[in-house]
């Protein structure tokens, strides 16, 4: 049995639409400094760095080379990943593998995006096949509109139920000092009357574009308890992809087969048979309200077709049976390269008991997911007990 790894420290910038006061490197350094400061560590403890973002979004090629000083300086291994929206979770999974493999003892994972400096949606369109798909692609919104239409048609989920997800997210965000979109007085009516982007997805059904960075420190099992009072142990990780072409699988966004495959793999690895009962909290990558409801079903939180019921009954509210995205989620904060790492960090904060005002009392087992380019998924289970 390979050794375990645990998250011992985390740091996030305060996410906003535009960080005009800092460069990308300064923004990353802010997250790294906050991460190390959480345990009063200095950068000399870090053996390797794993960083993720989408280079084309800011138009910077090999950004980790230019900004190596902000990552903690040269003279150590720096690994760069780019897997789309999943990348922050891919970073976490790589950190875990590097520690478990024995190659490094302490690994710093970083994710960032400064979307205000580029054109994310224009670049997302390049995921489509240049001949068959690009002419009908329009960034992430069109993609989720297709998913939402299929899902609404099959599940009978209503616009009101989707709007409740938007309300939950933006209210939870008010309890999270790092969240971007905070709307304490948001109502279902406000969501339903917000501007239509691509039917049935309205403005407040969709995540924002944010600037920000996040960092998490992973340590080997012998070091972790010395570095953190209550480390967040990585109990299981999994990755799964879906078909590459939308036309090959018109229902893929509603079915989310990669989410089903990845979550079932991590559940099996840690012995979770009933996720609604066995998980204490989930931080899932929900770029749109309808996606969160479909994800309830595909993560196994409820039976097929019951995603709307779950939000109606308040099961996933902070204080409900299985709080989902107490941080406010992607719907409140979305700096793409950081977003999935923020899911992992928020799950870690919950099982560390350090989530502050949005803490789920007594959380011991948490699910974090990343969702990215062409419907693929990374899933992690974090626990307060060493697995």
């Amino acid at each position: 049995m390979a050794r375990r790894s645990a998250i011992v420290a985390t740091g996030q910038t305060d996410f906003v639409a535009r960080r005009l006061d800092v460069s990308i490197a300064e923004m990353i350094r802010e997250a790294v400094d906050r991460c190390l400061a959480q345990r009063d560590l200095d950068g000399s403890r870090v053996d390797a760095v794993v960083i993720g973002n989408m280079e084309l979004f800011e138009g910077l090629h090999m950004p980790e080379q230019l900004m190596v000083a902000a990552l903690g300086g040269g003279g150590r291994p720096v690994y760069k990943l780019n897997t789309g929206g999943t990348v922050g979770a891919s970073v976490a999974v790589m950190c875990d593998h590097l520690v478990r493999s024995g190659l490094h003892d302490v690994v710093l994972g970083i994710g960032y995006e400064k979307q205000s400096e580029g054109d994310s949606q224009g670049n997302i369109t390049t995921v489509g096949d240049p001949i068959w798909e690009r002419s009908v692609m329009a960034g992430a919104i069109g993609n989720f509109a297709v998913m939402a239409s299929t899902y609404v048609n099959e599940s009978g989920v209503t616009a009101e139920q989707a709007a409740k997800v938007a309300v939950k997210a933006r209210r939870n965000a008010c309890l999270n000092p790092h969240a971007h979109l905070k709307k304490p007085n948001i109502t279902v009516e406000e969501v339903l009357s917000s501007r239509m982007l691509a039917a049935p997805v309205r403005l407040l059904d969709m995540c924002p574009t944010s600037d920000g960075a996040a960092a998490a420190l992973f340590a080997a099992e012998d070091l972790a308890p010395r570095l953190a009072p209550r480390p967040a142990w990585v109990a299981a990780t999994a990755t799964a992809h879906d078909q590459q072409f939308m036309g090959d699988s018109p229902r893929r966004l509603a079915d989310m087969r990669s989410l089903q495959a990845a979550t079932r793999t991590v559940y099996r690895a840690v012995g979770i048979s009933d996720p609604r009962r066995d998980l204490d909290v989930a931080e899932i990558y929900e770029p749109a309200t309808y996606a969160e409801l479909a994800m309830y079903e595909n993560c196994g939180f409820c039976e097929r077709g019951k995603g709307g019921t779950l939000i109606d009954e308040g099961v996933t509210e902070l204080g409900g049976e299985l709080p989902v995205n107490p941080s406010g989620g992607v719907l409140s904060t979305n700096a793409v390269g950081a977003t999935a790492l923020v899911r992992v960090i928020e799950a870690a904060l919950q099982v560390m008991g350090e989530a502050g005002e949005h803490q789920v009392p007594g959380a011991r087992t948490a699910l974090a997911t990343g969702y990215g380019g062409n419907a693929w998924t990374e899933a992690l289970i974090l626990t307060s007990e060493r697995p």
Partner: protein
Amino acid sequence: MDHRVAVIGVGLSAHARRRRDVDYAELALEAIDAALADAGIGLPDVEHAVTASMDFLDGRTIASMSVAEVVGSYCKPESRVVGDGIGALLYAWARMRTGAYRLGLVVAHAKESQGRPHIISRAAFDPFTEQLLDPDEEVVAGFAAQRFAIASGRSAADAAAQVVRARAAGRRHPALEDLPEVTVDDVLSSPLLAAPLRELDRAPLTDGACALVVAVDDVVRSLGADPVWIAGSAVDTDAYWLDRDLARVDALERARDRAVALAGWDDPRADVVEVGAAYGYQVLQFAPVLGVDPDSPACNPSGGRLAGTPAVVAGLDAVAECVQQLRGRAGSRQVPGARRALAHGWHGLGAQTHAVAALEAAA
């Protein structure tokens, strides 16, 4: 506790200046089909994949999506490293040492012909200061070549001789497109690229893909495969090019030391060394650090990048050559009796990040 991991299959697509006949997936598929056939397995047997590619080269975001189908990642794990292909091999090795996966695929692809190198590499510079000067990677290579020449005393003719040598070696490699024969004088009289570098000093822009099948020890045995063991591998990154002496290659030294230490080798010298060198001077600069005489038959039997292998793919091509050498299957390029090999790759301005893999023949 840790599993040993071996390369049990290698495959290269046909490398050429321009592969107009294939898209990224078809290019990668050529390499993957060859690697799977070499390993004697099928795509459904593959449990996970790690790919290497660069969005700026491919002109799209999440460039690994172009090859997701051909690496067989439907409902399976694929992750993707940006940079030289040895980084992808290293990650696959880390994932498999723990026993998380038993059989995997490592794939790198690049079509340098489809982009404009000047515009692509300019995007790697600081946007507020340097990009105004309209620089590119070749300019930094010119600075590095100048610094290296002063520090080492090696001449432009010495570097040009490496170009001549690499092109001759490449002619013996069936996957590489033959490059025109050149002389030292041809190189030295070719148009100026970035002083002191000349156009023929530079590796030609190339399209190609490379795939490796990797397996843990018990799978190697049960398949009866022809393995080459990954004994050690390491990546290391230096300071940004403006913040260091370009005559030095500290990151390469650290990556070498770490890879060799992981391998448990008392002596870092190997029987075959594939040096990542996109310019003639880089062979002279990097080879001694990797413990090999640049002019010996043990250095770059494949010809390396100067013989026509693309960035990103180059590191995996280097590993593939080492594997075939250690299996005794390198044909007319064979270095007799090779038991240990080092494969090297780099990326970043002025070779900022280096990756090394230490490989051992089966006992």
